[in-house]
């Protein structure tokens, strides 16, 4: 069925040129508008530290959201169980970390280093969970968004309940290693160490994802598979494995986000993922469902905006991202960088 497609007006002239640029780079524009508006609303030192904090928070949000947008973008599956993956990640990462910390042979090892094996274990376990989830829950409902929504919501319930059955309903404190506490203070502006750590992780994941999708044959296959899975098979590739892998990657990303978030809040609880899901959804809709780049920039914008608003008008900071999302959608109905036609 041919969708209604608007032909682009291609008039010449400076105005049209500007519109073209804005059309091509809406994410830069949005980021700039938010940052510049805030610049005039607060003292410089405050602006600096909030900008740094906001960008870092944005990167954490990106990590937390990227798995969901990846799965939607590449497989067209709307996975509302993403929040549950985030929670699972926090639990697995947290427990492995606490176990390692409490293990005598490792007593001499810096706790900060132990985050890495914990994260690794989480990613592996979550990927496995993702495979099971894809096989058991998602496989029967490819191509049916409505049933995907239902099934993944059901799956999320099951996962959360299993978490409670396994770990109990208590909150689990997850003290962060001392070396990731506190800030570097430079010229009166505090840069939190953990946020800098998260920035590193977020950027690495972003570039990693872009590289895999745009530079490797696997990325090529995935992009092709989304458009025409049958043809990919007819070229001799086993698309099922590919899709399972994508789902596993999405789950692993979500879980890694959960670890990152668990250490940020220093507390793990069953509602952790659900509580993040709304922000995740705002980020991925605003970015353009399925777009990694869009997700990245809209996460940054949301991170910045909530920080600025938290200073200027804390009462409204909660609504600010929803309002922004609505505005962005009125401007660009498919989000900043649309990829998947919905």
């Amino acid at each position, binding site marked *: *069925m*041919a969708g*209604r*497609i*608007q*032909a*682009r*007006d*291609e008039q010449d002239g400076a105005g049209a040129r500007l519109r073209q640029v804005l059309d091509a780079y809406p994410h830069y524009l949005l980021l700039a508008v938010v940052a510049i508006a805030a610049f005039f609303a607060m003292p410089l030192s405050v602006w600096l530290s909030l900008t740094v904090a906001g960008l870092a928070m944005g990167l954490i949000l990106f990590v937390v959201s990227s798995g969901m947008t990846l799965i939607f973008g590449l497989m067209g599956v709307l996975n509302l169980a993403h929040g549950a993956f985030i929670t699972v990640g926090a639990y697995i990462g947290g427990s492995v970390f606490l176990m390692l910390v409490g293990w005598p042979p490792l007593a001499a090892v810096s706790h900060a280093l132990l985050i890495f094996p914990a994260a690794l274990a989480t990613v592996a376990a979550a990927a496995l969970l993702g495979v099971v989830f894809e096989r058991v829950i998602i496989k029967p409902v490819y191509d049916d968004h409505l049933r995907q929504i239902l099934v993944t919501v059901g799956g999320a319930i099951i996962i959360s309940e299993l978490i409670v059955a396994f770990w109990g309903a208590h909150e689990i404190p997850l003290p962060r290693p001392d070396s990731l506490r506190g800030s570097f203070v430079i010229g009166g502006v505090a840069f939190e160490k953990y946020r800098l750590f998260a920035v590193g992780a977020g950027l690495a994941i972003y570039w990693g994802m872009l590289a895999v999708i745009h530079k490797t044959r696997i990325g090529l296959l995935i992009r092709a598979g989304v458009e025409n899975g049958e043809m990919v098979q007819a070229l001799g590739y086993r698309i099922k494995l590919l899709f399972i892998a994508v789902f596993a990657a999405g789950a692993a990303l979500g879980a890694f986000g959960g670890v990152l978030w668990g250490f940020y809040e220093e507390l793990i609880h069953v509602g952790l993922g659900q509580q993040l899901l709304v922000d995740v959804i705002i980020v991925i809709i605003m970015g353009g469902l399925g777009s990694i780049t869009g997700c990245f920039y809209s996460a940054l914008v949301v991170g910045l905006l909530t920080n600025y608003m938290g200073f200027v008008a804390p009462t409204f900071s909660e609504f600010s991202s929803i309002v922004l999302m609505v505005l962005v959608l009125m401007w660009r109905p498919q989000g900043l960088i649309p990829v998947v036609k919905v």
Partner: protein
Amino acid sequence: MHSSTPPALLQARELSIRFGGHTAVEAVSCDFATGTLTAIVGPNGAGKTTFFNLLSGQLAPTSGRLWFDGRDITRLKAPKRAQLGIGRAFQLTNLFPELTVRENLWLAASARTGAGFAMHRLANSYMAIRERVDHYLARVSLTGRADWLAATLPHGDQRKLEVGMLLALEPRVFMFDEPTAGMSVDEVPVILNLIQAIRDERDKVVLLVEHKMDVVRSLADRIIVLHEGRLLDEGEPEQVIASPLVQQAYLGEVLVPADAGAAPEGDSP
């Protein structure tokens, strides 16, 4: 065609549409007068379906104007144009799959009556619409399958329903996009007879995209040739088909010298 005739019902002026860098229809100007059946021919990708989309409002032109009954309808959306009486059948079958054949036809028959927003009366209680549905059910010989879900119909019957819906809409402009494609040989005449009957009423505009040249010859009053989005030629069927430009661009060198009569273009939808 003749300066004495009243202005044509449908007039396209310099219609163009561009997709990214590709111009699918380029500056096509053309008049369609009541009482004529115009066949649109051209190789695949020439822009025939796109041209239909421009006329019926599924696509908005990048530039150019469109008049219907003396009124500029360039910016009107598809529903509005259908309300005015520009109806079309689709090249790829385009039905309401989980509704019955009768309901499909009902939707077409009531579309221009304005009954759609009524909530207090049952849909089946509109006698006039019901009669129309029954009438067109018979015309496309689907009466026996009236209660089948459209999705369960064989392909050929789906094509018939597609045409039936256009008829039930009772528009003033009929657009058929390869109506017989995918239909089995013995059923093709049913549809062609229907189109012929509309043409013979001589108060409608009929547009027909068709690859089969014998069909075009027997039905069309006029032929338009599209090639790479441009209007290559137009005129009386025999004259257009004979023109060397058309021979080269559309029909190509004849590959089968044996059957000189039949056009070699045997391509499927």
